[in-house]
């Protein structure tokens, strides 16, 4: 596209040390069904370009939705002017960018059946059927089906000579049933957090079956007992639940920009500081976390990041020890790294890219272990499924998590359903208390499509994954 060249030439002639342009069209289709009422059926798109100029160790970023040569050149000039202004408030010589070579490449999320091409009627009919199924249950007062489909089409050029043509997309169905009974109200949700794939995934999911299950479980949950006093107990966490736990307690604290204090005013900083690299016991010996932007169907898998750095796979925690961070071209050199790990991502064309969590997952256990065996091997504990309330301090140390569904375990068996269960723990206690992880047959990916970070706020997405795992001696109790 000619605007890529116009922008790069303009940047060079203005004397930029580095510049890139990202032309991006984002399209979202949303269908929101609430008690058989179609609250929102929409197709939203925005297209434009963001231009970054790096000059004398400082960034400038300008964006526009007007596509013509003059406006592209004017936007480059604006980004340059802003970079010069930024340079008036820098430390020493300012920032440096990690070394990178040029690439010419194309990436497409592998999709067999593009959800945008599925007739609206087919989608709505399916959603209506699922919604009706839940509403048919006595006691279900609210049934929600939220279907989200998103596509980003990007063209990227940098003054390094890189030219990228990237289209990524994902789909996320979310179903919630809320039961109201005996003065209480409880919800149960089916939500795998989205996958970078096509409609074929929806066809495999058997959402009608899932709808029945969650409606029934919402009713079981609203009638369930609560745990009263807080006690040290054993927890078994399912992969969906662990997805959010690792997101909050491993993903965010190992974003290098947070480690450097770049998010100090808003999202917060990190306890996992650089002197801990290679020696800090983040988890027990069986805890291995991998950053992997090459993960098939991963929400952060895109071939390259928005710095033009290729997707990679690396250990973030290895045998329990903090190994490395997720980094970008501007954060990596701050701790002496030569290369970026490719974690720079922006949400829309008008966002300046920031350091993001990669696809990040817990490796499965090496010994053969099924979830059934894990429960059978647990005398007294709580099994938590799905995601619930979660809150963590801004250094990512102390946290409190809920869940979506709970079973009390007694003598190796699921004893009774529970509701309103909360557990409190902290880093590094939590991951060090992990004493068993099921094997790879039970490893499952779960996405996060709404990771809020940055100012102005950006909504990031990435995939996590785990096999069911056990944690000993955690403070578990009921809400008030």
């Amino acid at each position, binding site marked *: 596209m000619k605007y890529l060249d116009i922008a790069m030439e303009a940047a060079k002639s203005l004397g930029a040390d580095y510049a890139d342009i990202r032309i991006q069209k984002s399209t979202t289709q949303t269908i929101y069904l609430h008690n058989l*009422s179609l*609250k929102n*059926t*929409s*197709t*939203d*798109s*925005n*297209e434009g370009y963001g231009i970054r100029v790096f000059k004398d160790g*400082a*960034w*400038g*970023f*300008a*964006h*526009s*939705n007007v596509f013509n040569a003059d406006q592209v050149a004017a936007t480059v000039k604006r980004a340059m002017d*802003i970079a010069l*202004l*930024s340079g*008036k*408030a*820098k*430390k020493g010589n*300012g*920032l440096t960018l990690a070394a990178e070579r040029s690439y010419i490449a194309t990436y497409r999320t592998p999709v067999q059946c593009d959800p945008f091409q599925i007739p*609206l*009627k087919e989608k*709505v*009919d399916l959603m209506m059927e699922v919604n009706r199924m839940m509403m048919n249950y006595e006691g279900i*007062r*609210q049934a929600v089906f939220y279907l989200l489909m998103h596509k980003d089409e990007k063209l990227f050029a940098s003054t390094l000579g890189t030219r990228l043509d990237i289209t990524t997309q994902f789909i996320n169905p979310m179903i919630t049933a*809320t039961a*109201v009974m005996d003065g209480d*109200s409880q919800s149960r949700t089916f939500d795998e957090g989205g996958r970078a794939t096509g409609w074929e995934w929806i066809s495999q999911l058997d959402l009608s079956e899932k709808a029945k299950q969650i409606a029934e479980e919402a009713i079981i949950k609203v009638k369930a007992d609560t745990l009263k006093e807080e006690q040290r107990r054993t927890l078994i966490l399912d992969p969906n639940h662990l997805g959010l736990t690792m997101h909050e307690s491993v993903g965010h604290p190992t974003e290098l920009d947070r480690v*450097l*204090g*770049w*998010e*100090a*005013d*808003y999202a*917060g900083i990190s306890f996992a500081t650089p002197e801990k690299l290679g020696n800090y016991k983040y988890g027990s010996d069986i805890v291995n976390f991998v950053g992997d932007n090459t993960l098939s169907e991963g929400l952060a898998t895109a071939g390259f990041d928005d710095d033009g750095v290729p997707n990679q796979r690396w250990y973030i925690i290895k045998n329990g020890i903090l190994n490395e961070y997720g980094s970008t071209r501007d954060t990596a050199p701050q701790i002496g790294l030569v290369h970026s790990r490719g974690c720079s991502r922006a949400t829309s064309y*008008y966002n*300046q890219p920031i350091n993001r969590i990669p696809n990040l997952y817990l490796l499965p256990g090496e010994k053969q272990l099924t979830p059934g065996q894990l429960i059978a091997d647990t005398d007294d504990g709580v099994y938590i499924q799905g995601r619930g*309330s*979660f*809150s963590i*301090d*801004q*250094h990512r*140390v*102390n946290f*409190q998590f809920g869940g979506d569904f709970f079973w009390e375990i007694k003598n190796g068996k699921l004893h009774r359903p529970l509701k309103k269960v*909360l557990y*409190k723990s902290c880093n590094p206690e939590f991951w060090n208390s992990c004493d068993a992880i099921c094997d790879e047959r039970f490893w499952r990916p779960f996405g996060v499509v709404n990771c809020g970070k940055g*100012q*102005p706020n950006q909504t990031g997405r990435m995939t996590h994954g785990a096999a069911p795992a056990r944690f000993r001696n955690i403070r578990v109790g009921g*809400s*008030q």
Partner: protein
Amino acid sequence: MKTRFESIAEYIKKHVKADDYNLHISAMNQHETRFAQNAITQHIAGENININLEVAFENKTGRCSINQTDETALANLIKTAEEMAILNQPDPEYVESPKAQTYPEVQNKMKNTLELKPEQMVEIIRKSIANGEKQGATVSGMTEKHQVDVLFSTKNGFQGFYDLTDFGHSMTMKKDHIETKVSFESKDYGTFDLDKEIECLNSQFDALKTTQPFDACKIPVIIRPAALMEFYMFMMWMMNRRQADEGMTAFTDQLGKKFLGEKFSLMSTLSMPELVTLPFSRDSIVSEETYWIRNGVVETMPTPRYWAKMKNLKPASPFNIFIPGGNATEEEMMKMVPRGLIVNRFWYIRPVDMKAGELTGMTRDGVLYFEDGKVKHAVNNLRFNEVPHDTTRRILALGESVLTDSSVKLPTVLVDGFNFVDKTTF
């Protein structure tokens, strides 16, 4: 901008074939400068527009939004929305678009903010950093300026326009274990006083120099406005009329009852010129002086248009937040209880139990311990599990209400027996 919006609205009016439509156009001009660890790390400028069209054939609806304004794009916008509506299933809860209504005149666009230059914004940051460096500390924050224009237009004759400006500056200062923050946000840059903000930051910073460990317990707490905003915002969100009527929240069957504490009122008001006051909501509910809670009695709940139509109620939507204060100073509050804590801010508040209205969250940016009417030292951050409506019954005193955000004005409050349940390491 208004004329440009009106010509888009004209085009839509002329070309829409659907039985009904709602058109919402908004444009934003942004300049945002983020700084961290005493240097600018991000710096953004640009303009964007969003044209959002919802159409209906009888009660079959479709919606589309774009950010391009040429006729081809607008024609495509109409086509996409109409095709979606035609292919869609009927919506039993569809409400026809609003008719012409008069809405209050408001002044949210301020000359001082419009005229603020990027160079001045960088100068504000340089001064903020210099203050931090003087104390061997790092400063991080954001300086931002926005101009927003909004037009709303419907098939049935509602047409409304408003514009607003916004200026914000925040500073987090950190040195070793000390970490504290101040933030300013207002429609009017003319009311910003950097020296005053820095003075406040420095005094918070100095107060945190000696820290002692503190275990979680139930204790009286003085909640400063920035913390209170986070806390009661969640309660407001849980006050939706439909969810209450359907039995899903703590507010079920509480309308007209003294469900909250006598000392607590919560309003949306047209009478405070310093607050950003939107004349109508996103779904075109016209703003009116509203007591949501008056002296502890639940007077009105936010009511969506469909629920209002169905239950024969008046639709209502919060357009700013004002909690009337009292005249107690922090010094006086400290003398009202034997000991307690002062909280600057809360962080990561999340619902724990929707039906009970229970929330969890952490303190952030400094907690002080006081005893015998005096601040003794700072303490580590704490986690709470609390029910906001319940805390209003334990309010012992309120301070003067102050501008906390461009559309929020709140007091400092003293709450008895605040339920802290855990502590963290810093």
